[in-house]
């Protein structure tokens, strides 16, 4: 399905983050904490925030695989973010020393259009094991603010 996608994620592309409700969206506002680094069931700590590439039709098909994890929470939709805007986060935030945000293509067997938002703070890559800090919170907030379009399932 996603063989056509170039290996380098272009600035003009948009990526999608699946959102569950009500945990990660409330009164129309996307939670900054929705942009998080997971620890996989294998125990590996992710060093990226999972997102999906592709156009709307591909994303609709692809995101159907995602299920809510607990009773009461439901699949709400996916938030679209411009890759170019994501990459500007680190540049615009002069208050955050040496921060770089990028989007990398990370295709997997089940999700060939899988990509990851990677964050480096003071030249250290943020992972799921990095303790919460105000700098990480600022990046998460900026990502949440980029979610101008939310596509409902």
């Amino acid at each position, binding site marked *: 399905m996603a063989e056509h996608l170039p290996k380098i994620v272009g600035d003009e592309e948009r990526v999608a983050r699946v959102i569950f409700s009500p945990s990660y969206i409330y009164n129309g*506002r996307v*939670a*900054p904490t929705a942009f998080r680094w997971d620890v996989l069931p294998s125990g590996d700590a992710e060093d990226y925030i999972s997102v999906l590439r592709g156009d709307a039709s591909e994303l609709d098909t692809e995101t159907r695989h995602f299920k809510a994890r607990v009773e009461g929470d439901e699949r709400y939709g996916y938030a679209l973010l411009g890759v170019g805007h994501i990459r500007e986060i680190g540049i615009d935030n002069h208050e955050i020393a040496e921060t770089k945000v990028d989007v990398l293509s990370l295709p997997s067997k089940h999700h060939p259009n899988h990509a990851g938002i990677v964050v480096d703070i003071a030249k250290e890559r943020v992972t799921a094991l990095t303790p919460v800090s105000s700098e990480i*919170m600022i990046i998460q907030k900026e990502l949440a603010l980029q979610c101008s379009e939310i596509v409902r399932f």
Partner: protein
Amino acid sequence: MGKSYEDFGKRQRKKQKNFAESEISCNFAQKVKNISDMAQLLVTVSDNAQLPHLRTAIRQLRGVEQVAMLRKMDVPRKVLTQGKAHKELLERAESLGKLAEGWDGSDSKAIAPQSIRKFKTALGKVEEKLLQGWVLFPDAHGYLYLDYTGSNAVAGITMTGERLIYFFKKDGKTVKNDGAAFTTRNLLSILERVHG
């Protein structure tokens, strides 16, 4: 023995004085309903012994209708208005407190009861206007996250059981802190600075 009688006398006089003051306060409160358009003068004294002399002196002034002595406990306290924002945040905190372990993947933790309890306690002491624009979210580490987006500021406060980790961006400046103690006073201070 003499000293005991003296103490007893002092206690009795004190009781009588308190009773008299309470009566005056009650009467005064009732009167105030009818004379709310009249000018009132509030005088605070550091030495209670001067009060009787002060009352006598004020009574002798022309135009004085009534003199009342209010004890500190009789002075009305500032009443907090708890409206929609307060109610929504309280309900949201209670709802998030029910999230089970694994609510966002196998590594996600239930929200620490201590965070919920401290947040609810603080909520009871926050003015409604300071809560406008704030939304509460869960954090997979088991924390609460208070998020703010306003016309002139954005902010985020992570509430662990013991600490407040926060930032706010306002007027082109960013303030951040990675380790304030999670106390009602500190949380109030952040909310005031974001809104102030």
